[in-house]
């Protein structure tokens, strides 16, 4: 019996079209737009101005508080201007336009392909370097990694969990990374272990990636304290709380931090970025992005510079198919639909999914037949049908008493609803309102 989390979960069709496609390097775009807010927390403060020459890896926006992170230029060239552009939410966000000229990296970055295995840093240095390199959770949540590594007072991390689950359908960027950079990931994990002072790390991988499980299990023998756990395929196993439950059997208490169970979760992509940042002095300015979809001519996994417009990826994947109805940044379960293809790739972009017109449309909403499927699939043990009604009627006090804030917005309820009811739409709305109410109460 493979391990998995206990309550709820769904199994959408996997559609991992690109799991066999090696990572390719995407050609440099002409211009990049690097937003200063690519992470959870305060936006970074731009350090450059129009006309400045920058190199790839150069710090261009500085972290403004503890929960914030640095932004580095992903290309070499001239700063065109510091301006606003609509992000995936459609609202303009500040960022830096850089015109690309050549591809010159900062001298201290080690551009060779050699594996650097050994390191001699204490944990403070590692955390500091991670903070400086602007590393955030690359699974999509983009929470600054250095914050995770410093546990709150009175709490102690016991185990490092590495998220190689990639439970979102279609996406394969983590899968490819595990196959092509296993040693780098393992060294990155060792660095993270050292930073947190833990002796044990577990890589959780879903059973639909047997090649990655096999490869990493073998390689992990050479690294002390690292093991691989195969997990049953079930969405949303990549959720932090679900992964901890699946691997350690412990449940994060409601409203609590994962560290309460002694576990800290990081993505495999993050581990790789940590390796590059510390062993190669390379800040986070590129990442693997899957571009996929049933109609896409050349679905691929690309190594993409941060700030590259989505349109460039589409071009490289064989152009936009004719009946594209929806473009999603991220996976189909939790990704955001884009209104424009000018939106740049950011640190949190794990994939770009093109959906056909007929897939993109939602079906007509019918009456709730109280089939209780939403209740049975909710991984947090909530009652989505009830929360939706309460949010719709704006009865927010009862939303709160029915634990709406526990919702992880995985979308399993909306996915499974036979009446096509927009459960998560309303729950998210209610969650936002309840969050406001709680914050104003605490003031």
């Amino acid at each position, binding site marked *: 019996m493979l391990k998995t989390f206990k309550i709820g979960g769904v199994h959408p069709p996997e559609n991992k079209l690109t799991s066999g496609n090696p990572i390719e390097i995407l050609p440099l775009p002409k211009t990049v737009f690097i937003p200063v807010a690519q992470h959870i927390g305060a936006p970074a403060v731009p350090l450059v101005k129009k006309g400045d020459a920058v190199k790839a890896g150069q710090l261009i926006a500085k972290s403004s508080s503890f929960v914030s992170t640095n932004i580095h230029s992903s290309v070499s060239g001239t700063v065109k201007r510091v301006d606003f552009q609509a992000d995936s*939410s*459609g609202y*303009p966000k500040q960022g830096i336009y850089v015109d690309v000229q050549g591809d010159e990296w900062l001298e201290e970055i080690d551009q060779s392909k050699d594996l650097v295995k050994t390191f001699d840093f204490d944990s403070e240095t590692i955390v500091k370097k991670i903070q400086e390199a602007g590393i955030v959770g690359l699974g999509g949540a983009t929470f600054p990694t250095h914050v995770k590594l410093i546990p709150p007072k009175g709490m102690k991390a016991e185990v490092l969990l590495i998220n190689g689950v990639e439970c979102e359908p279609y996406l394969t960027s983590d899968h490819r990374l595990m196959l092509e950079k296993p040693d780098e990931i393992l060294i990155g994990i060792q660095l993270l272990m050292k930073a947190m002072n833990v002796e044990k790390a577990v890589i959780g991988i879903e059973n639909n990636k047997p090649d990655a499980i096999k490869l990493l299990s073998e390689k992990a023998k050479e690294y002390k304290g690292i093991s691989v756990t195969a997990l049953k395929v079930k969405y949303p196993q990549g959720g932090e709380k679900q992964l901890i439950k699946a691997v350690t059997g412990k449940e994060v208490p409601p409203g609590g931090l994962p560290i309460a169970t002694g576990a800290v979760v990081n993505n495999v992509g993050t581990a790789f970025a940590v390796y590059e940042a510390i062993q190669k002095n390379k800040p986070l300015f590129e990442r693997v992005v899957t571009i996929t979809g049933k109609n896409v001519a050349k679905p691929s996994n690309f190594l993409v510079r941060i700030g590259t417009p989505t349109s460039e990826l589409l071009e490289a994947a064989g152009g936009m198919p004719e009946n594209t109805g929806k473009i999603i940044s991220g996976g189909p379960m939790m990704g955001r639909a884009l*209104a424009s293809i000018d939106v740049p790739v950011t640190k949190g972009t794990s994939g770009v999914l093109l959906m056909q017109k007929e897939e993109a449309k*939602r079906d007509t909403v019918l009456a709730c037949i109280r089939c209780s499927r939403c209740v049975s699939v909710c991984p947090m043990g909530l009652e989505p049908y009830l929360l939706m009604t309460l949010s719709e009627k704006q009865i927010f006090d009862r939303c709160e008493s029915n634990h709406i804030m526990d919702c992880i917005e995985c979308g399993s309820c909306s996915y499974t609803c036979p009446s096509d009811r*927009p459960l998560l*739409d*309303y729950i*998210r*709305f209610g969650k936002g309102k309840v969050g406001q109410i709680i914050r104003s109460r605490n003031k």
Partner: protein
Amino acid sequence: MSITIIYTIATLSIIGIFAAVVLYFVSRKFYVYEDPRIDEVEGQLPAANCGGCGYAGCRAFAEACVKASGLDDLNCPVGGNDTMNTVAKILGMESVKKDLRTAFIRCNGTCDHRPKTSQYDGASTCAIAASVYSGESDCQWGCLGYGDCFDSCDFDAIELRSDMGVPKIIDDKCVACGACVDACPKNLIELRKQSPRNRKVVVACMNKDKGGVARKACAVACIGCTKCEKECKFDAITIENNLAFIDADKCKLCRKCVPVCPTGSIIEENFPPRKIKVEEKSELQNS
């Protein structure tokens, strides 16, 4: 048979009388004194329970009126000055004359003015659409058109106009309770001072983008060109963040700003048709 009926009537009557006696004593025992003026004031209120006064309902407002030392801060927007005068009379206080107000939706981005650049397909409420993204057009400020204001209105004073994409306030029905102001996630609705015959001159736009961006997104966007500000003799127009605003308290309804607006974002309502001036006429003839 008749005995059964008599017994039945007798039993029920005894139960009824007994219950009445119990109720009488209970109501005496638990009697709570309440200022009779509260009932009197409440009787004068419109009983709409809309919350436009800021209280939970008409009863709560009546209590507040009776407790208050003056009526300066209390106003029932639905009943208006007449109601407040009566209330003042009951309580023996001075009534304060308040301006009548009407809601106005400051967006004229109907489908023909504002091209769609994407298509929203989610739960059909403005609040949710606004949390997902900026909207179907390039204008991030404008009306989303899913009718949260329409749903919030208790007085049928909003016409949804789903074919046009922007709802419209029906002035005669609007009581300025402010429910729609709170409901609009884009904060487009303003309660404006009502002028005679509901005449109004308003900048029907909330777009704070720079002129070019605004104009590209919507044909009738305010581009912040300041022409109207210069035209206005009464300092009623101010420009802030690339957006003009006409202060209804200062506006004298001269309508001079309307023709100078290059995008037509200033609209006039309920005015008699303009007399076409001589020079314009000749222009028309030439064209």
